[in-house]
């Protein structure tokens, strides 16, 4: 059994504390699942299926959106998660949904 840390109960990813090989059983707090990819130490594993375009959540807050479908147990990183901030390449400001809690600009 290998451990991954879930920071917030609302997260859909966990952080691998040691390198994980594909097919290993991973203990991620309340969830136990099987890795489908190799996951380097310190990288993230999906705790559930995440649809393309869905929000990836860590620390209880959005850290980006899935740029392709992510299966439970898959490696979650730059190849399948897009940032929504500072995207000058897209030339349109997007904001996290809860970025403006007090209605201020």
């Amino acid at each position: 059994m290998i451990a991954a840390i879930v920071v917030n109960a609302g997260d859909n990813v966990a952080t691998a504390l040691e390198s994980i090989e594909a097919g290993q059983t991973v203990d991620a707090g309340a969830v136990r699942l099987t890795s489908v990819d190799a996951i380097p130490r310190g990288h993230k594993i999906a705790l559930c299926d995440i649809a393309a375009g869905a929000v990836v959540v860590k620390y209880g807050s959005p850290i980006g959106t899935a740029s392709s479908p992510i299966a439970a147990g898959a490696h979650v990183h730059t190849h399948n998660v897009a940032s929504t901030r500072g995207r000058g390449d897209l030339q349109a400001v997007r904001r996290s949904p809860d970025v403006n809690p007090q209605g201020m600009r």
Partner: protein
Amino acid sequence: MTPGPAFLGYARADGRVGIRNHVLVVPTVICAAVVAERVAAAIAPVGAALPHLAGCGQIGPDLTVTHDTLAAYARHPNVGAVIVVALGCEQVVAQQIADAARQAGRPAHIVSIQAEGGTLRATARGIEIARELAASMDRIERSWCPASSLVLSVKCGGSDYTSGLASNPAVGRLADTLVDLGGAVVLGEIAEIMGAEHLLAARASTPAAGAQLLRVVSRVEAEAMALGVDIRGTQPSPGNIRGGLTTIEEKSLGATHKAGERARLEDVVGYAAPITKRGLTVMDTPGLDVESVTGMVGGGAQIVVFTTGLGTPTGNPIAPVIKVTGNARTAQTMADNIDVDVSGILTAGEPFDAAGRRLFSEVLEVASGRPTAAERLGHREFAIHRRNPTI
């Protein structure tokens, strides 16, 4: 002895408290930097130079920031006396830097390279003054000062997955503890708040402070976007990405843990501008480590607690920088740069509160004079943030 947590500091005439007693040697302009460094080296380690790249060819806000940053260091509580090394024809006015020090009750002298007649004479004159000042520094004694007189800069650099999971939350406990005692904490690096600003704004003590934070983050994001590229690659950096950080949002959410969990956001200030409120202040600095630390110390922080996952050596000319890592491998491979190892949070179940208490003890000991790894190694990085081109 003051009731409550205290350290042995330098109570200054202007009411502020220093934790070091440097003779600061300030070049007004890059042309005076070599002479300034030689003067400071002659009285090491009490001498501290501020070599920088600016001081001439600047217009508008950039000139103001250079001048104000140098003046802020000249009256900093960790400085006991000042020598300004001028060339003689530059924009930054030596007299104004010296006046800033004198108004704060510190002796200040000016050595002009053109007036003295060249490098050798200016260096000799500077060293003569520096030795007298260094001798007078020995006569200033430390006394017990309350922890509430500290302005703590919190910083991270070379982040990896351990930063957000271990070292930054541990520093956050330290920040909350210090604010509970009446002290001040400053967080910089606006780009590394992007994606976590909602959490800090929700802790603002006034609507104005929260609004100002959101404005500054929006401005920095717009500046980055105006370049027409994806910020990923810079934020997070290639090393951050190898270390497991996927997006700037993820990096920011981990990074802002340094600012505590409950300390109220009291103020948002410009680069190197005075930190006047107790509680949490956010300073408008870039993410580049040395420019960020330079600005926060300029604002009045006497001490910096700096977390790192991958390891980084950054120090400061006048403020001790305490390096903290949550990465057990880095604690070993870069042992000479690391002051506090909190990797037990991830490997041995050390509670955040326990790690925070260890950090608080470390801060008080370093504030009382114990050198940090960066001080022992001579890391004195200094860089003034620039926004405009050199003209």
